[in-house]
């Protein structure tokens, strides 16, 4: 019996225990049941602290710093638009900011969810090509309102984030007249300033000890977000479990053409900047950080040490597989690269299922089949 078959069998036992089954075959079940009955109470409060201090706040700080660097680079470039070196610096700063955001892309609650921040920062998927169409429309109109970050913030979310900036920085035609280059630069600088603003707000709001962090730490009937500690734990657990699905199905499978409903693969996230695969690797590393530094592994290991370790290993196996595919998305759509990407899908699915069941068992919360469905 290999480790996945072993995990499958143990998963079934965990489910039966969770469902309150009375008759269980085999000594393992007895051991697990005894373990469940003898296990110490789940440390919900400790998980919240690790989530905030070990994973989330370091990630928002990194993103805020990277966004500040992007803003400064874009402004410097606008001061000297003909300096090719500054253009390269801005593009590098863009990559740094995008990859710093990747671990946060899976967090969709609290300050991360407010004010349509995920869509303002990175509208994806964009099957109708809304970003490109709106950017081109603004470039044609030369409206001064897109040169100001404050007025840009009131416009369509498609104009405000990384994908719009990506078009301006990475898809500019050569030989544009100076006036147009200047306009594009001003537009790009306004988007960069808007990204810096949102990144700063995100970092500030997650650090605000009297804000959402307090709600996570003090669940009660009077708390408008969380009735009890189980709900807080469930929110963190679902961020991890749903994050795996988001990366696997939306970020990876569509662009590679593994689940394409059209004949051609769909555009990858930040594909024009050549960042699709690095962004996915950064997202998987973020998942690993959430699981480890964010305190999930530490708290599910009491239910089953082997499976708890396996979940982290599966995430790392998937990240290694995507790294093997390189950074060229076109190349990864065929041959060895494609095989490497396909190989990433299996451990992700396994990690998702194992995590849902182990958290259910360890924390006594239901990361349910239907509860996380979204339909």
């Amino acid at each position: 019996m290999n480790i996945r078959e072993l995990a499958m069998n143990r998963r079934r036992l965990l489910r039966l225990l969770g469902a309150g089954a009375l008759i269980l075959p085999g000594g393992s079940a007895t051991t697990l049941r005894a373990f469940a009955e003898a296990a110490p109470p789940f440390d919900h409060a400790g998980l919240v602290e690790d989530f905030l201090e070990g994973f989330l706040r370091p990630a928002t700080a990194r993103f805020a710093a990277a966004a500040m660097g992007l803003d400064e680079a874009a402004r410097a470039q606008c001061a000297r638009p003909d300096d090719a070196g500054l253009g390269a610096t801005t593009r590098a700063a863009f990559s740094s900011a995008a990859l710093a955001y990747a671990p946060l892309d899976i967090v969709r609650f609290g300050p991360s969810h407010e004010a349509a921040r995920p869509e303002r920062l990175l509208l994806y998927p964009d099957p109708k090509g809304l970003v490109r169409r709106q950017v081109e429309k603004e470039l044609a109109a030369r409206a001064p309102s897109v040169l100001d970050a404050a007025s840009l913030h009131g416009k369509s979310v498609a104009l405000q984030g990384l994908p719009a900036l990506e078009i301006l920085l990475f898809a500019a035609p050569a030989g544009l007249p100076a006036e147009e280059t200047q306009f594009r630069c001003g537009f790009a600088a306004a988007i960069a300033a808007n990204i810096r603003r949102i990144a700063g707000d995100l970092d500030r709001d997650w650090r605000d000890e009297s804000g959402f962090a307090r709600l996570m730490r003090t669940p009660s009937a009077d708390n408008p977000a969380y009735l009890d500690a189980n709900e807080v734990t469930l929110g963190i657990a679902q961020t991890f479990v749903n994050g795996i699905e988001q990366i696997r199905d939306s970020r990876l499978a569509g662009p590679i053409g593994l689940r394409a409903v059209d004949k051609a693969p769909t555009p990858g996230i930040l594909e024009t900047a050549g960042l699709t695969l690095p962004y996915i690797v950064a997202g998987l590393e973020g998942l690993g950080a959430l699981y480890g530094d964010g305190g999930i592994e530490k708290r599910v290991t009491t239910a089953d040490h082997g499976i708890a370790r396996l979940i982290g290993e599966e995430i790392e196996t998937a990240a290694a597989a995507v790294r093997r595919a390189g950074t060229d998305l076109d190349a990864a759509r065929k041959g060895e690269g494609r095989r490497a990407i396909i190989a990433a899908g299996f451990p992700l699915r396994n990690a998702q299922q194992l995590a849902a069941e182990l958290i259910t068992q360890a924390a006594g919360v239901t990361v349910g089949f239907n509860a996380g469905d979204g339909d």
Partner: protein
Amino acid sequence: MPAMAIDRRELLIGAAAALMTVRTAPSLAAASEPARFASAFAGEASGYGVGLIGGDLGIARTIAMPARCHDIAVRPGSREAVVFARRPGRFAVRFDLDGRAGPLELGAEENRHFFGHGVYTADGRLMLSSENDIAGGAGVIGIRDATGGYRPIGSMPTGGTGPHDIALLSDGRTLIVANGGIETDPNGRTDIAVSQMRSSLTAIDLASGALIDRQELKPDWRLLSIRHLAVAAEDSVVFGCQWHGAMTEHPPLVGITRVGAAPRMLDCPAMVTRRMRGYVGSVAVDSSGTLASASSPKGGLVAHWDIASGRFLGTSELADVCGLTGTGRAREILLTSGAGVTRRTMPDGDAATISPPEAHADLHFDNHIVWLGGAT
């Protein structure tokens, strides 16, 4: 007299043996009675499928499916049904409730995907399904000829984006559509541009394809996505919503309306609404059309209302509960859960019955269950 005592003892032993046989071979016993309910499931060992469930809540038969499925439409006047792939699925499967014919896979049309729900027209001639026009991002009702191999014969707009559940009114020609208002990434399940969402309930005249009514919730509840619905007595429509706004806000999640009227949210204790955590996974009306129920798998509860008075009746508690259906008995609802539990409940006060916890322990029932007719 001694001989008679022996006879009675033998009779009792025989009766006990018969009971033992029923209890130790539930699948055989269940197989001998017609299925009363059907639900999609994911099995630990058996993969994805549809489970046909007997009146005793045992699994009578299963039909394998290529991927996770969602809701089931039962063809009137026949023993035929169609299960729809889960959003954004590209297939549906017609199957025979009695296993007399093999399943038939129905592929989505070019540039379309299913949203997981469908109905038949009252005469059973046409099958209607909620679908997405992928290129345009617009909701459509796909129309297929159920008498001709389920050949697609047309479509009509739903008047919104992201249509989910659909239902037919008693006139047989008015189709109600819950337009969730959110576009789905056809390559995954990611919602697109939620901040721009615009949900609605629309009514379509099937004879002409005309949109005869469109209802939206008040602006404060713009981020409520109307997903599921059920038709009650006198064609009132009960609908359930999912909240996409801040988790510190707790709008009501279940409402009722009629064609031509304004939607009205049902009163619900604040703590119950909070426990539902912004998420209704299914709604159902009992067989008398007077009881409405809405499940929240996130909250592990089902809330019940008396439709005539609008009075909140209470909750039934079950972890990861989602599937709901009337059972043929007035004021009774059957519940299913993602942990493989089936349970009957009568919210007016009668005792609930629940399947043994190990009965379907290796199955995760999907969001919906349907009653196939007959006494249960």
